[in-house]
């Protein structure tokens, strides 16, 4: 596939921002952001801070779990006008907990338009109540009614379906063609509404419940331009690429063990070191495989999201834009 064609596509994720606790942990402060064309929204956001329960980041902090905000107006959202002006229609806040303590809140915004085909689903399991993982909340845009209908009535067991696989492994799970795989249990409905890419991210939350966030999108609207999963070694000192997918070049192979990232090195290494999502605005200048991949595929920026479980680093996910 031609890299130039791919980079011209709008990604499903339009805006990413990272909010971190202030020094006295009384508020969430702006740490980093990637706004693409939504520059005015970025300018507004950079000046803000959120207390516990305030706005979308503060609400995720308070509740200790991910939140999907499908409608800004009338909700506890403080940037409604700015978001609407940029065509943003859905916000997701993912708190990152290292054990009981919040390290950051990752906030993602998506846009909705006529060509849009995609869905964001939050799946959860409360072990005290059930062995099933069921849909907690979802955003389906305007074209995915049939898909939503079945999602809301389906329950997955651990190890089954993309949410169940992420739940079992505590690792990100990606499927590039949902219609062909047996792992995606709602393939028929997904194909009908044009959804063919699935990426599921386990969320580090406070409490016993498990949450996984599923990003489902169409070929014309990729979730991101490239994504990779990096795994720490036994000592947690190095990250090695375990695989991924690039809209420009296809399947991204696992690293050969020699191309690793040291803890603290580059955007991914810093995310592994701090447990805080990081934004690298110039992906091409990143060290090692990250910079090489960005240069080869013509990618602009990279976001590194640490995946934690029980306070330990399980993986770092790299999203390229």
């Amino acid at each position, binding site marked *: 596939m031609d890299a130039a064609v791919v980079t011209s596509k709008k990604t499903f994720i339009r805006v990413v921002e990272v909010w971190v606790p202030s020094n006295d942990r009384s508020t969430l402060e702006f740490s980093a952001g990637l706004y693409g064309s939504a520059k005015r929204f970025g300018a507004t956001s950079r000046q803000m801070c959120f207390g516990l329960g305030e706005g979308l980041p503060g609400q995720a902090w308070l509740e200790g779990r991910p939140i999907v905000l499908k409608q800004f107006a009338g909700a506890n959202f403080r940037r409604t006008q700015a978001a609407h002006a940029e065509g943003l229609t859905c916000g997701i806040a993912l708190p990152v907990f290292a054990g009981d303590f919040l390290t950051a809140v990752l906030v993602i915004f998506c846009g909705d338009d006529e060509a849009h085909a995609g869905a964001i689903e939050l799946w959860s399991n409360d072990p005290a109540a059930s062995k099933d993982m069921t849909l907690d909340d979802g955003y389906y845009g305007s074209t995915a009614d049939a898909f939503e209908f079945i999602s809301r*009535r389906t329950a997955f*067991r651990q190890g*089954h*379906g993309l949410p169940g696989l992420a739940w079992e492994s505590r690792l990100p799970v990606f499927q590039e063609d949902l219609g062909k795989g047996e792992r995606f249990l*709602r393939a028929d*409905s997904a194909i009908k509404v044009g959804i063919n890419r699935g990426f599921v991210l386990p969320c580090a939350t406070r409490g016993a419940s498990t949450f996984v966030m599923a990003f489902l999108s169409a070929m014309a609207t990729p979730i991101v331009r490239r994504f990779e999963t990096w795994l720490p070694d036994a000592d947690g000192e190095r990250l090695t690429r375990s695989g991924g997918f690039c809209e420009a070049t296809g399947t991204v192979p696992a690293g050969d063990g020699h191309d690793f990232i040291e803890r603290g090195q580059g955007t991914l290494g810093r995310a592994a070191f701090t447990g805080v999502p990081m934004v690298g605005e110039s992906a091409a200048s990143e060290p090692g495989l990250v910079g090489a991949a960005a240069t080869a595929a013509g990618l602009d920026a990279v976001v590194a999201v640490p995946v934690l479980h029980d306070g330990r680093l399980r993986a770092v996910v790299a999203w390229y834009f």
Partner: protein
Amino acid sequence: MLVNATPSINTRRTLQIQDVGMVFPTKRGPFVALRDINLEVQRGEFVTLIGHSGCGKSTLLNLVAGLTTPSSGIMLLQERELTGPGPDRGVVFQNHSLLPWLSCLDNVLLAVERVFSEKEGKAQLRERALAALDLVGMSHAVAKRPHEISGGMKQRVGIARALAMEPKMLLMDEPFGALDALTRARLQDELMKIVATTGATVMMVTHDVDEAVLLSDRIVMMTNGPAATIGEVLRVDLPRPRVRVALAENRDYVQYRKEVIDFLYTRHSHVEKAA
């Protein structure tokens, strides 16, 4: 040390299956039929088990019936552990299992006496048996023996016998599998009416996708064996009473049906491919 000794009891919960596994010894070594089975069935709920042949759905039903003992895990019926068969679970098999030398009434009476004979007199027991036969529309054939009635009628008597014991759960193993399509459809409709009347809690094994969607509150879809387990559970939110003809064109019904077919024939089809 303070201990909270008051367990919370969910009064709606009829059946709990917790971490149940079933391993059969064979000449070639242990055969894992089922693993990690976890399921709860609420009072008044109609649950079907669906999956390919050999996926262990009948094994699971037999475990709940107490006909076999699980290799691991526990099963609770209204918070009491299941340790064997009992009248608190009425079982209807594909084969009607009626005693050929007894009339329909006596077949039902046999089950009724087993449960209620210590508390009730003969007249009351007979009333119970007749009421059960009336519920399944078999009042006209109480004196007939099994060989004198059709396959569908035999299954009705089997259902009457199970219901007459007033079980906490009705367990049905492909009860309509041996019947022709028209008789099966009629009995499915009648079963829905009976369940609506009695509020019975039902677990039923079936191969039939339409039957599963028509009857169920939840469809439990099982992965292929060996070492089969529950893969997906589909909640069927179709309003009741359900009318077969109207449902055929119902958009939601079609969606549910497609999901089950997709699970069985796209995602878990390798048994058929290998055959």
